[in-house]
C-alpha cells in the first residue's frame, strides 16, 4: 500500500506531457493523412489534389532555389524552435507546482496556490490588514510573504513570520519550504 502511494505521489508531482503529446499526434496524423491521400491518388493514376509527391520531392531536391532565402530561413528557425520545445518537454523533469502532505493512509497533493491562499489568510489575520495588502508566493522550497502595512500602523515582522511558520508546521508539507517576510517600506492609505 505505502509503495503504491509513493508511486501515485511521484506521478502526481510530475506533468504527464499529455497536452503537447496530443497536439503533436494531431499534427503528425493530419500530415500523414494528407501524404496518404496524395500517395494513393498517385498510385491509382489520378490527378494530385494539391501537389504530386514526385514534384514535391523534386522541388525539395533543388531547395535553396525557388523560394526566397528569408522565408526559407524563417521556416527553418520556426521548425527548430518547435523542435526545442518538444525536446524540452521530453527531457526536463516537468515538476508541477505542488507539495505533498505525509499521511499513512492517503496520498495527498496540494497545489501551491491553495497553500499560498491559506498562508495569506493567516498572515492577514496576524497583521490585521486587508486581503489586498498581502501577497504570498509559494515555490518548492521557499515561501515569500509580502505585506504592505496600512499607513501609520506599524507591523511586527516576527509576529507575522511566527504565524505563517506555525501554519506551515501544521500543514507538514514535503518538501518543507522556508519563510521570508517582506514588509513594504511604504504603506497604503484609504483601506
Amino acid at each position: 500500500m505505502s509503495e503504491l502511494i509513493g508511486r501515485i505521489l511521484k506521478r502526481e508531482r510530475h506533468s504527464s506531457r499529455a497536452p503537447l503529446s496530443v497536439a503533436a499526434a494531431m499534427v503528425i496524423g493530419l500530415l500523414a493523412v494528407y501524404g496518404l491521400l496524395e500517395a494513393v491518388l498517385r498510385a491509382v493514376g489520378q490527378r494530385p489534389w494539391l501537389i504530386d509527391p514526385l514534384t514535391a520531392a523534386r522541388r525539395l531536391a533543388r531547395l535553396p532555389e525557388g523560394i526566397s532565402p528569408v522565408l526559407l530561413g524563417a521556416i527553418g528557425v520556426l521548425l527548430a524552435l518547435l523542435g526545442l520545445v518538444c525536446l524540452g518537454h521530453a527531457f526536463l523533469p516537468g515538476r508541477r507546482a505542488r507539495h505533498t502532505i505525509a499521511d499513512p493512509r492517503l496520498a495527498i497533493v496540494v497545489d501551491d496556490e491553495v497553500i499560498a491562499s491559506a498562508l495569506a489568510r493567516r498572515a492577514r489575520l496576524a497583521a490585521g490588514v486587508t486581503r489586498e495588502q498581502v501577497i504570498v508566493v509559494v515555490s518548492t522550497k521557499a515561501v515569500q510573504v509580502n505585506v504592505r502595512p496600512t499607513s501609520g500602523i506599524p507591523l511586527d515582522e516576527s509576529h507575522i513570520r511566527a504565524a505563517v511558520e506555525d501554519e506551515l508546521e501544521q500543514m507538514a508539507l514535503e518538501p518543507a519550504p522556508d519563510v521570508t517576510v517582506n514588509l513594504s517600506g511604504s504603506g497604503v492609505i484609504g483601506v
Partner: protein
Amino acid sequence: MNGTPRAVNRVVLAIAGLVLLALGAALAALAVVPAAGRLWQDWAGPQMGRLSGLAARTRLAPGGGSWIWLVVAACLLVLVIFMVSWVANQGKGRTNVLFQRQGTAADDGAAGKVVLSTAVAEQSLKAALLERGDLLGVSVTSYAFRGQPAVRVRVLPRQGVAPHEVAADIASLVDALDALLGVQVPVLVSLGSGTRARFTKAERVR
C-alpha cells in the same frame, strides 16, 4: 494516476523534437550558407533521378501509378494508426470495479461472486464532501493503477481554507469508508484551485 503512457509521451516527443530540430537547422543552413545549398543539390539531384527511375520502372500498368506509392501509403497508414492509438491512450485507465471476490468452497461453500462498484466509494465520498461550505468543487473518480483500483478525490477549496484541515477531514471520511467496505483501496486526495475558486469570495466565517 491515470494510465497516460508517460514514458511513450516523452520518447515520441524526444524523437519528434530531434527530427524538427535537425530539419529546421538544415533549412536554415540551406538559406544562409551557399556551400550547404550546393552540397545538398549535388547529393539530392542524383537521388531524385534514381527515385523517378524507380517509380517509372515499377508501374503497375501503362499509364498507371507505381506500386512504391502503395508502399508509401501503407507506411503512412501505420503512422496514422500509431498516432490515433497514442491519443486514445492519454488519460485512460478508468475502472468501475472497486473490489471483487469469488465465492469458494473453502470459504462458505456458496457459489458466485461479490463485486463492489466504484460508484459506492465515489458517491459516498462525493455526497459527504458536497455538504461542506468551504469546498467549491468535488470530483471523485476511480482508476486502475498498476492493475489495482484506486480512488482519486479532487477538491477545490475556497480561498484561504487550510489544506491540512480539509485533508484530515477527508482522511476520517476514508477511514469510515474502509470500516464500511471492509477493504482498503489506495486513495489520492488532490487539493487544487480552479478559476471558480479564484473568483468567488474567500471564506470569512467558519
